Each structure stands twice: as C-alpha cells, then as structure tokens.
C-alpha cells in the first residue's frame, strides 16, 4: 500500500521568509501526489498535484513542489511566507489497494507565520 510521511508536525516561519514543508512517500508504482491546505472551519483546498509530467509542479498562491524519485520526496516550498499561509497542510498519495483510487493522507503539518 502507498503511504506518505510528513516529517514535521509544526513549522514556524517569519513573514517574508521561505517555507519548506517536508513529505516523503512510499510507493510500489509511480505515484500521484497532492498537497492540500486546510484553513480552520474550511474545506480542504488543493494546492497542487504531481501526475508524472513535470517534476517541478507549480500551484496556487506561490507554492510549488518538486518530485524527487531518488529521494522519494515531494516537499512543498514557497519563497516568501504570508500571514494568510498559516494553516494545516496535508501531503496526499493515491492508493488502489482496495480497488479504488482513494486518498491516503499524511498526518499534517501546521504552519505558523510570525509577524
């Protein structure tokens, strides 16, 4: 079965500094990977997804992620954090072990942005 590991449960950055949220995956075949963001009392919103095309994926709000097969990683980055980026971020891989392409979520990384 596929899985993802988010290496940090909490990350704090100052406004205007770079953001790095780390995700490693385990997959027996070429994976499809996603990053979602969850703001309080709001639904999960797709930031970006990797589907075996370009390894550098650009998403919304200035986020991007790079798929590195050799390192089994899919880290999320942003050059300059904004206060509105404070939220919970989930790395996701699709898994078909039960016959359905369902999402397998990481445990989440809570991003705090300091003024």
């Amino acid at each position, binding site marked *: 079965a596929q899985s993802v590991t988010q290496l940090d449960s909490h990350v704090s950055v100052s406004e205007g500094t770079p953001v790095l949220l780390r995700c490693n995956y385990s997959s027996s075949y070429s994976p*499809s990977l*996603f990053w*979602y963001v969850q703001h309080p*009392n*709001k*639904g*999960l*919103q*797709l930031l970006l*997804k990797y*589907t075996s095309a370009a390894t550098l994926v650009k998403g919304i709000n200035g986020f991007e992620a790079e798929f590195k097969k050799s390192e089994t990683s899919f880290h999320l980055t942003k050059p300059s954090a904004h206060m509105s980026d404070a939220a919970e971020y*989930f790395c996701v891989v*699709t898994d*078909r072990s*039960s*016959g*359905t*392409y*369902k*999402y*397998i*979520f*990481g*445990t*989440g990384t809570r991003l705090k942005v300091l003024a």
Partner: protein
Amino acid sequence: GAGVSQSPRYKVAKRGQDVALRCDPISGHVSLFWYQQALGQGPEFLTYFQNEAQLDKSGLPSDRFFAERPEGSVSTLKIQRTQQEDSAVYLCASSLSGSGPTDTQYFGPGTRLTVL
C-alpha cells in the same frame, strides 16, 4: 459555482444515539468519497460511490456505519448507536469522473460530530 456542502456543520449526540450526516456534491460529479478525520490526524478513507453504486466500503470501521447515495447525487452517512470513539470530523469529497489516480477531489467543510 457551488462547492461541496455538508450538513449539519456540527452535531452533538449522546452515546447510543443514531446520527445522519448529509453531503451535497458538486453537480454532475460522478465520484463521492467519505473520510473521517480524528483530532490532530489526517483524514482517513471510509467509503466510495460511483454514481449510486457503493464500490468500496473497506474503510468503514464497523457495521454501525452505513452510507448511501440512492440517486447518484446526495449522500448520507449514518452512524448507529454512536460511541465516543466516533467523535471526529466527517469529510465528504467529490470528483468529476470515475475513480482515477490523478483525479482531484473537492472537499466539503465537514461535519464535526461530538459524542458525549
């Protein structure tokens, strides 16, 4: 256009009560998923519908959990004889086509269930 909506947004139940949680997917979306998100955890898959057919219920934790989507649109997740361990946020998601590896799922805001 309208996104995925869920109701109620909050539900408090006494242990042993039955509850019903509703999901209205994006119009025309074929696939519908239910997930359970415990406090401080990532969402976990419960069940999947393609139109009105429930094709995967491998994530349902017990036979107290039941889901339906009789007309291929609105779905209801029912939990019978609720237990404290059922306290969680229940998320519904829909996607445009049948289940595929790259399909984007669109999530509703969730229903927060608290069992006392």
